[in-house]
């Protein structure tokens, strides 16, 4: 209301004055702006190919929404979409849950050296590439006498014959979650450990004086203090669920495509498995669909964040 009552030329001169005053900041911002435009906004012009038939040789031919019609009529596409949501969301919940549990356990460790050693050990898997991780777990879960897990299960009498954990649709999904928890849980504890370190020790002291046990302190002090961080982590990661690729790609195989094919791997196979030059219009349409769903998730997260934390993430 106030700005509307100020004449336009005065507002403009004030803006100029502000820009001049903060010119140093604007100059520093320029490279970031250029970077964002060149690498994030200009490539968005490629979205137009989603509405064309284009093989990179002849000029693109506008086909309207035909690529999307074809996409939505493909059973493999919907299966890949469902798998993307299923694998990503369950993985996110499991990893966060396990990261919280491990953070709480680490927080209870009194010996500082043992604590640091434990932290280091659980962080290491995160730095292994997915290709190496897949190779290691293929050996561990091998359905032969060389497979450590199968041999252990047979020794314990849990099973009488080898289970093909990574080659059987029934077993692939839980095995995928286990591998993800092993690899990423340690890394996920960092943010929770930082929050736990920030809790005022005086609160614990007061609780002890009031006669609280270790369990009660964890339940009534630690967990409530962590809750805001847990929600933030969940919300921020929810926006990234459509990006699933590498972990699914390196662990999938022909027999488990019905449960392991995700949107990104679907695009990959459309591009490299067709035995010919793919229709880039079609694969761009898949990418655009993925981006739109991802954007909707970000907006939903923003709303959720505003409601839970009182402020948005964007």
């Amino acid at each position, binding site marked *: 209301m106030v700005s509307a009552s100020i004449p336009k030329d005065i507002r403009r001169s004030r803006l100029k004055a502000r820009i001049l005053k903060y010119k140093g900041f604007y100059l520093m911002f320029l490279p970031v702006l250029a970077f964002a435009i060149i690498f994030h906004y200009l490539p968005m012009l490629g979205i137009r190919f989603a509405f064309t038939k284009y093989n990179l040789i002849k000029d693109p031919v506008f086909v309207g929404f035909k690529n999307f019609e074809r996409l939505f009529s493909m059973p493999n596409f919907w299966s890949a979409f469902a798998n993307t949501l299923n694998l990503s969301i369950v993985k996110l919940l499991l990893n966060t849950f396990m990261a919280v549990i491990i953070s709480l356990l680490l927080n209870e460790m009194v010996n500082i050296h043992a604590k640091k050693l434990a932290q280091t050990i659980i962080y290491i898997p995160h730095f292994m590439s997915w290709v190496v991780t897949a190779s290691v777990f293929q050996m561990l879960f091998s359905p*032969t006498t060389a497979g450590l897990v199968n041999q252990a299960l047979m020794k314990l009498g849990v099973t009488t014959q080898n289970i*093909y954990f990574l080659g059987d649709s029934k077993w692939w999904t839980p095995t995928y979650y286990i591998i993800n928890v092993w690899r990423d849980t340690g890394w996920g504890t960092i943010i929770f450990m930082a929050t736990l370190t920030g809790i005022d020790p005086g609160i614990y002291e007061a609780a002890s004086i009031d006669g609280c046990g270790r369990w009660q302190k964890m339940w009534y002090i630690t967990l409530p203090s962590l809750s805001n961080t847990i929600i933030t982590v969940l919300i921020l990661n929810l926006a990234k669920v459509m990006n699933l690729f590498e972990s699914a790609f390196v662990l999938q195989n*022909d*027999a488990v495509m019905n449960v392991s094919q995700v949107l990104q791997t679907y695009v990959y196979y459309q591009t490299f498995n*067709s035995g010919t030059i*793919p229709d880039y219009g079609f694969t761009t349409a898949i990418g655009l669909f993925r981006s739109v769903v991802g954007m909707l998730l970000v907006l939903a997260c923003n709303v959720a964040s505003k409601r839970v934390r009182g402020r948005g993430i964007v």
Partner: protein
Amino acid sequence: MRKVLSLILALAMAMTMLTAFATTAVAEVTKPESISIFIDGTVFTTNNARDAFQARWEELTGIKLEITQPDHDAYYDVLQQQIASGDWPDVMILSSTYYSAYAAEGVLWDMTDAWEASDLKASGRFTGDSVVEGLKIDGRLYGFSPTRGNGCVTYVKQAWLDAVGMQAPTNWDEYYAMLQAFTTQNPDGDDKKETFGVAAAGFVGPEAPYVNYLPEFYQDGTPTFDKDENGVWFDGFTQDSMKAALERLNKAYVDGVIDPTTLTNGTKDCRNKYYDDTFGAFTYWAGTWATNLKSNLEANNLSGELVALPPIAEVGAYLDRVPPVWAISSACENPEGVYKYFIDTMLDGGDMQMLWTYGVEDVHWSMKAETVLAGTDKEKTYEDGQFHMKESLEQAGTVYTKHHIDPMLALASFAEGYYDPREDSVKAEAKAASELFNTHSKLAIIVPTTEEMSMYNGDLVTLKNELIAKVTMGDLSYEQAMAKFESDGGAEWSKAIVDSLNALNK
């Protein structure tokens, strides 16, 4: 009489003029001043003294070479971008997929006539007529390969055959009996260790010709598109031969003669298991790999004696991959000149063939007395006048084995009187495996590109591979698999592609 004489003279003059015209047409190929080429990592990279290669090539031809060489792994991405930009190179290397697609889109120059009139064809040294025929699309040639594509032969451990008291198999029954013996009769002499008859990287290969890692199981079956004797296209996946192949794979899986982790094996996993004496029959690349398999087995204190099997009776012939080709773009201003001075000289039987096969003298190979480091603790000393490849400039401790042309796959010998280093540079077992393959192989066919192929084949291949894996592992019966093929749209996609391929014949 005079009239007859005049007529004869006139005819003779006309014939002479026609001949002279034809000769002039061939001879009047203009030598290009420069040639732009787009190459992958199969040609020496800058880290491997590409500059020396370029200088020697320019010295031999007097033509300037403009080279674009993206990272090998990103080659086709960059090439596609280059083609999309409209700035096409004169010459490019293309895999069979890109070759047929680019030919269909008019990107490539038709070199049929140039090939027919080429020096190489007339030289009498060329042995790759079948390869040239295989590269023709609708009877026209758009690319040339100086080598065969190579393929796989089945290597069987002689020590395992001796241990189970068997001879090398010649038919399916003998082959399967051998696999069973390898699985159950403790051929490695270790009671506790599990052994298998055969292993492969997947039940079906990731690229054409798809069946080359398990040829004894597929025999005449194929999961992809093929042509019958009348030139009519069909989808091999829907044929009875494929049903029989799946039954053989399933039986082998149930009987435990095929490594149960075949589904998730990579080729490196298979090699390591072979070196660890986990299985006995391994279908792998002919040629240099025969030496690699032997030396790695020996490095593990195992016998390196391998039998390279001639194809069993039911297989008939191993499959020779369609080789990558050198193609000239239709935007090239002087394609005849580029063909004559660039492509036709590759197998000239002399200095140029030497350059493309082994590289530059005293950079990549040498005849001088010297000691070459060939491994962390291996040194080899050569006498003066003894041909040898030099230590890699990029990877110290390793030795170059070849340049762009694999000497064992080359489609033409060196000219008479020109020194052919192959006898000195290729190990006996590699040469034997290569010759066995060359004798017992047939070229895989090129499947042309159609719009329907581009639309459906990605989904179709994924579905077929899933069904092959599930039938092999017993998760689905063949009938259930075909019902799923029908219900998931596979049959419809397959028919659309087959119809589109046959429409090209009309």
